[in-house]
């Protein structure tokens, strides 16, 4: 400035002033731009960013839904929820986790394996996530923990609910069981996927599985504010979940328990059905197992024990066990022959213990033979020779038609049980399609005594018996009580109306029989399955004779009291072909290896005067039907009939009771 003088100084000042002015103008524009951006974000797009902000900070936790109950017909809970005591720790809230967990281990007396599992689980989750030390504390453990609670800060005893089957092994095959949802469950059921929370128990088999969507209930929701790391800060909202639907079944626990007692230590199945309403009063498969074992993941030892049991407890024999029906098919063979006018009731055959046909010998079960027998006698004494001859005249295809009509070879339930099997009633067409060979006439003979290709489930035999016992009408076997179920009286009047229609209708009868084969279940419900009801009555009378007349195959199991009197048909089905040599030996049952012993079957209905119930008893490798299965039916019938009064009373009292 000393050298520059005022001129330069002035020029400098004016340059900087001018440029500063330009800069200031630019600043205005830029600040304006920032304000514009603020406006755009905070005013124009406020809603969008508010949503995003809430999405950031709010997180929902689904609570496990509470599963609906199963009740028996009388409203007793047969699958419910039990309060269980659990032990939770949130590791983050614990000062010294290692000390604490060792203390807990001592108190609960946990073994090293469980302890290691807990440590592994702890290391795999976030420190603020709840660590479940035990899902099911015993009462003693719970008391002990509470006693020491003051020195176990961070440990939380929690009350939770878990599935419980109070009748243990009694309903296992019917209800199934629940266990932790697997990847498969999630993939196959959207409802489970939607409601899934870690540790959710879902039905694995049986009704628990098939009714999953009704039972599962609605999740409760807890809404929390979380921070950027996902840690819960505070609870914002809590929506109560909804318990799943409670489902009332047609079963009677007393009868079911009796079935279980009868089948103790045996492999087999017993089913009891109302012959009008189709209500299944009991359906038990033995041996069974305790479904409660599966709740917290079955232990290796228990699983091995169940899996390796030679009697195969996992199989639900009532609906998936396929066995030759043996002589229990004879009522249907007889009915079919009568219906098709193949023989008259007076047709006689002389049984000499065996019959030679098509160059082969067919033996009657009685080596000495039955002598001259008519149809009624043949059913009563279960004469095989008579049935060989009758079947020969009947032919397998006509037998197939009648058997299928009465429920053999078809699934009893529509879609309740995934594992249910349809069984097989052979026909010439079936053999050509399935085996590619023509029907051999000899095969008709053994089909006529329930051997050979024919395979049925014990429940199918029960349904068949029921549909015979009610006079030959189609019924709807069911396990679940519905609001709109028809009453016994409604069904009876429907049946008699259908019968009248059939008698009056001119060429109705053949059309209806065809209908029965092809149309869906409900269309011909409660309509006649016969051409002439006299034929059905004849067969029922013969079954009565089989149980209640001397020389009848189950005569020793009869009940003379009219109240309990029942009629039935024994069956003894061969597991393997018996050679002539073995036949000569005539071994006692105890001398035959278990797997080679015959299956014992018995079908029955009663009380004979006014039948209401049908049952089928099946004992795997049980020997003869008359000596093993029929006595069981006798014991069971007493219970069933006694319970009938209870059932009727309950119906009266709870006319509007729907669980």
């Amino acid at each position: 400035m000393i050298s520059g003088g005022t001129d330069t100084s002035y020029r400098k000042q004016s340059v900087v002033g001018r440029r500063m002015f330009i800069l200031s103008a630019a600043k205005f524009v830029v600040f304006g731009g920032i304000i514009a951006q603020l406006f755009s974000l905070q005013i124009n797009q406020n809603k969008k960013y508010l949503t995003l902000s809430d999405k950031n900070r709010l997180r929902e936790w689904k609570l496990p839904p509470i599963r609906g109950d199963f009740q028996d017909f009388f409203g007793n809970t047969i699958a419910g929820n039990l309060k269980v005591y659990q032990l939770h720790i949130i590791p983050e809230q614990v000062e010294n986790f290692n000390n604490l967990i060792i203390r807990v281990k001592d108190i609960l007396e946990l073994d090293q394996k469980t302890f290691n599992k807990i440590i592994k689980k702890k290391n795999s989750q976030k420190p603020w996530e709840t660590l479940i030390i035990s899902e099911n504390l015993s009462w003693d453990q719970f008391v002990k923990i509470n006693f020491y609670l003051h020195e176990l800060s961070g440990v939380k005893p929690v009350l939770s609910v878990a599935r419980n089957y109070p009748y243990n092994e009694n309903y296992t095959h019917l209800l199934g069981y629940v266990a932790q949802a697997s990847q498969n469950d999630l993939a196959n059921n959207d409802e489970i996927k939607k409601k899934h929370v870690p540790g959710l128990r879902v039905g694995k088999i049986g009704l628990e599985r098939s009714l999953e969507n009704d039972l599962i209930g609605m999740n409760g929701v807890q809404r929390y504010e979380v921070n950027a790391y996902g840690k819960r800060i505070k609870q914002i909202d809590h929506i109560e979940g909804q318990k799943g639907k409670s489902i009332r079944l047609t079963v009677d626990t007393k009868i079911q328990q009796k079935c279980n007692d009868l089948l103790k230590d045996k492999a087999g199945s017993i089913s009891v059905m109302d012959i009008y309403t189709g209500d299944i009063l009991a359906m038990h498969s033995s041996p069974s197992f305790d479904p409660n074992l599966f709740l917290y993941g079955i232990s290796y030892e228990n699983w091995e024990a169940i899996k390796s049991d030679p009697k195969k407890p996992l199989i639900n024999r009532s609906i998936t066990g396929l066995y030759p029906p043996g002589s229990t098919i004879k009522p249907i063979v007889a009915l079919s022959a009568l219906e098709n006018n193949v023989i008259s009731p007076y047709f006689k055959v002389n049984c000499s213990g065996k019959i030679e046909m098509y160059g082969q010998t067919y033996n009657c079960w009685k080596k000495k033979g039955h002598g001259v027998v008519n149809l009624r006698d043949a059913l009563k004494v279960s004469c095989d020779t008579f049935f060989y001859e009758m079947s020969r005249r009947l032919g397998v295809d006509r037998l197939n038609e009648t058997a299928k009509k009465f429920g053999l070879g078809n699934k009893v339930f529509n879609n309740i049980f995934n594992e249910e099997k349809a069984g097989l009633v052979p026909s010439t067409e079936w053999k050509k399609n399935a085996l590619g060979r023509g029907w051999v006439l000899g095969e008709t003979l053994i089909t006529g005594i329930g051997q050979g290709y024919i395979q049925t489930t014990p429940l199918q035999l029960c349904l068949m018996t029921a549909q015979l016992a009610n006079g030959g009408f189609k019924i709807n076997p069911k396990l679940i009580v519905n609001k709109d179920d028809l009453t016994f009286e409604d069904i009876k009047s429907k049946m008699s109306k259908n019968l009248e229609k059939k008698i009056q209708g001119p060429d109705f009868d053949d059309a209806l029989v065809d209908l029965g084969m092809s149309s869906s279940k409900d269309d011909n419900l409660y309509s006649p399955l016969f051409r002439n009801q006299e034929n059905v009555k004849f067969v029922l009378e013969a079954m009565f004779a089989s149980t209640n007349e001397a020389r009848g195959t189950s005569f020793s199991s009869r009940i003379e009291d009219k109240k309990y009197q029942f009629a039935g048909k024994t069956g003894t089905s061969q597991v393997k072909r018996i050679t002539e040599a073995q036949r000569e030996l005539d071994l006692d049952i105890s001398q035959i290896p278990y797997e080679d012993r015959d299956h014992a079957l018995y079908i029955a209905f009663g009380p004979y005067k006014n039948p209401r119930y049908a049952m089928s008893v099946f004992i795997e490798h049980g020997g003869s039907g008359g000596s093993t299965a029929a006595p069981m039916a006798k014991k069971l019938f007493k219970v069933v009939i006694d319970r009938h009064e209870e059932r009727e009373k309950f119906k009266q009292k709870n006319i509007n009771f729907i669980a």
Partner: protein
Amino acid sequence: MFQETALSGQITFFQKLRSLDYILLFCLLILGLVSSLSMYSTEGGEVLYHTKSHVIRFIVFFSMMLIFSFVNLKLWHSIGYIFYFVVLCLLIWASLYGVKASGSQRWVDLYFINLQPSELMKVAIIMCFAKFYHRTQIHLVNSFKNIIVPMVVLILPILLVVSQPDLGTSILIGLSGLVVLWLSGVNVKYFIYSSLILLISLPFLISFLKPYQKLRILTFFNPDRDPLGVGYQIIQSKIAVGSGGLSGKGFLKGTQSYLDFLPEKHTDFIFTLFSEEHGFIGSVLLLFLYAIIIYRTAKIGASARSFFGKLFCYGFASSIFIYVTVNMSMVLGLLPIVGSPLPIMSYGGSSMLATMIGFSVVMSTKIYQKQIIA
């Protein structure tokens, strides 16, 4: 001229006290208060480490600024180069023996404070240029020597800071320097030439960038590219600001910051927090506060008789404007994320110190506005 020099020498203490710019001081105090409250909010409504040290720093540096305001402008002028050299030496020291933190070496351990010399350089470069052009005659401003020397003076610290690496601060130093150069009358053509050269060499320069810096630039153009990685900061910041709405979520109620969704909320993203809690109205008011500060600073410059004082005030006002603009544009998603604090609001001692030194010189210019420096 002599008369005036003599006059200025006669200013009494009370005259000096009276001639302080009280509006500017008031605005700075308000800003200090707002920043302390924001710091309090970042800690979820508790007085913890950041709040305490921020308040203490503000009080200490503000008092220091007041005291330094009474330093004669001549003295500021005379230490202009020395200050620059000292800071440059500190920068070299930092790059040799500096304290490393989060991948960069920016700090010098001075035993009582960890100093970030790059922040001081933002002021030092303005002081240095102000002195340089104060002494340069207008017709020599565009001479070869007078172009080359400032270029070297500017590029040296930039290179040092880039190598730390600290892209944000080096850009801010560069912009501050360039603004002063432009204000002092450097021919526009040089700016055009150099920006052309920069544009041409841009691909070459980009290859020198650290991978994370490249990623940030790419992310700026498309934040959704990597929403949980680099884009996370921009997205969360925009969510915070946007969800603030007209009047904000309320003091201490900014969920984005309270729940830790906001990154760097104490430092670079303090405005986001403020904006979330106080909304559009609060943000505009804060911007207005900065505008007043910038305006008052520039006004002091306008009435300064010495070219040093004038150029410094203009330059400092402009760089405050640049810091504010860059920081806000960054958090609002208008610019890529580069580390750049918001003056006084952001947590950081060196930045606060540098800003307060700057205001000391501005105040001194005000007090000695009639003084002419020979």
